[in-house]
C-alpha cells in the first residue's frame, strides 16, 4: 500500500466529492421535474405532444449514455452558435449535467408511468367523486400512490446515476474518478490498483447511503399497508 494513500491521496480525491455529488443531484432534481412532465403527457391523450415525447424517450433509451454526453458536449455549442451564442467556455460539467438530466428524465418518466398505471383506478375516481380538481387529485391521491409503486425502481435509477457520474471525466468534467486518474498518471501508474480500489470504496459507500435513504423512504410510504399498527 502506498504510504500516503489515506493521508495524501484520499483527501485529494475527496476534494472532488462535491463535484460527484453535484453531477448526481442536479440531474436528479431536473430529471424528476422533466420526467414528471413527460409522464403526464405519456399517460394522456395520444396527441402530437404525446408522439414527440415518445420519440424523445425512445431516442434517449435507445442510444448509449456516453454517446449522448458526447453529442451534447460537441453538438450543443454548435446549436447555440447558430443563434449567435458562444458557449464554448462553459464548464464541461454543465454539458454533463444537461446530457444526464435529459437521459435520466426519460427513465424517470417511464418509471413513474409504470407506477401510475399500477395505481388502482378506483382511487383516482374516488378523488374525482369527492370533488378534487385535477391538481388536488394529483397531490393527494395520484402522486403519493404512484411514488409508492415507483420507489424501488427510482432507487435503482439513482444508484445508476451516481455510478455513471464516473464517465464525466471523459469530457473533462473532473470528479472523483477523474481526480484519481490524474493522480495515477502523475505517479506514472504506481499504486494504481490501490487508488482505484479506494475510489471503488468511495462509490460503494455513497451507493449504500442512497440505498439506506430510499429504504427508509419506502418504509415510510408503505406504513399504510401494514395490517397491524
Amino acid at each position: 500500500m502506498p504510504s500516503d494513500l489515506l493521508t495524501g491521496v484520499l483527501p485529494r480525491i475527496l476534494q472532488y466529492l462535491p463535484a460527484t455529488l453535484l453531477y448526481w443531484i442536479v440531474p436528479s432534481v431536473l430529471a424528476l421535474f422533466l420526467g414528471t412532465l413527460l409522464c403526464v403527457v405519456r399517460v394522456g391523450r395520444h396527441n402530437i405532444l404525446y408522439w414527440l415525447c415518445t420519440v424523445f424517450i425512445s431516442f434517449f433509451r435507445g442510444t448509449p449514455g456516453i454517446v449522448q454526453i458526447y453529442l451534447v458536449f460537441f453538438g450543443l455549442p454548435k446549436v447555440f452558435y447558430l443563434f449567435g451564442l458562444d458557449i464554448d467556455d462553459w464548464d464541461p460539467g454543465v454539458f454533463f449535467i444537461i446530457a444526464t438530466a435529459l437521459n435520466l428524465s426519460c427513465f424517470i418518466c417511464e418509471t413513474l408511468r409504470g407506477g401510475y398505471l399500477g395505481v388502482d383506478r378506483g382511487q383516482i375516481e374516488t378523488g374525482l367523486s369527492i370533488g378534487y380538481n385535477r391538481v388536488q387529485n394529483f397531490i393527494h391521491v395520484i402522486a403519493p400512490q404512484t411514488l409508492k409503486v415507483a420507489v424501488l425502481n427510482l432507487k435503482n435509477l439513482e444508484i445508476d446515476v451516481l455510478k455513471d457520474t464516473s464517465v464525466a471525466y471523459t469530457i473533462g468534467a473532473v470528479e472523483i474518478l477523474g481526480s484519481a486518474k490524474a493522480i495515477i498518471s502523475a505517479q506514472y501508474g504506481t499504486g494504481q490498483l490501490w487508488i482505484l480500489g479506494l475510489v471503488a470504496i468511495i462509490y460503494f459507500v455513497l451507493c449504500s447511503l442512497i440505498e439506506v435513504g430510499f429504504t427508509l423512504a419506502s418504509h415510510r410510504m408503505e406504513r399504510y399497508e401494514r395490517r397491524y399498527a
Partner: protein
Amino acid sequence: MTGHDTGETVVSLKGIRKSFSGNEILKGVDLEVRKGEVLSILGPSGSGKTTLLRCVNALERPDAGIVRVDGTTIDFSGKVPNKQILELRRKTAMVFQNYNLFKNKTVLDNVTQGLTVVRGVAKNEARERALKALSSVGMDGYEDRYPVQLSGGQQQRVSIARALAIRPDVILLDEPTSALDPELVSDVNDVITKVAGTGVTMILVTHEIRFARNVASRVVFVEQGNIIEEGTPEQVIDNPQSPRIKEFLSKMMAK
C-alpha cells in the same frame, strides 16, 4: 319504506345517452329524484344502471342529455367546462362497490379530505363533523386506522361516513354490498337504512331486491339502456307489469 319525500326535485336527468365503443348503454334516459327520496335502480347486469348512476356525478360523461343536481345544470350535448363538472361533483357523494377508501390515508383523513381540501372547512370543524359521521355509522374509535386494517364492511361504513360528512345533495351508492362477505352485508344495509331514515337523498344501485324493497321509496327498473318500469316498491317489485321484470325478480328472489 323510508325516506322523506318533500316533492322538491334534487336530481334530474333528461335524455341521457351513453355509448361505449359504439355500443349504446343508455338510450335517452329520463329520471327525477326528489329531496329526501331513496331511489333504487334495479336491473340485470349490463342493463346500464351503474353507468346511469355514474352519469349523475359525471364519472361517466353522457354523450348527450342534461344532468341537473340542485342548481347546477349541465347539458352534455355541448362542450362542458371542467368548472361545471367540479361543481356537480361537489354536490354529490359516491359510495363505491369496492369502498375505495384512500389507501394512503387514515380513516379520519379519508372523511375530512372532502371537507378541508375541497370545501375549505377549517380543520377542527372538519374533524368534528367527521367524528360525528363516523359515530353515526358505528365506527367510533377507528379514526387512526388505515383502510387495510379494516374489514370490508367497516371500510364501506367509513365510506358512507365520508359521503355523509360533506352533506351532499344526494348520495350515489353503487352496489354498496356486492363486494362484501355475506355476513357483513346486513351491517352495511342497516347503516344505509338508518341514513335513509334521516332524510338524506339517495340513489341506490343494487342487486339485492329484498333490501331495495325495504329501503327504497321509489324503484326504477332498467333494461337495455331504458327505464322500463317505475313506481313504488310495491308496484315494481311486488306487482311488476312487465314479464321481463317478473322473470328477473323470480330468479333473484330464488337465491
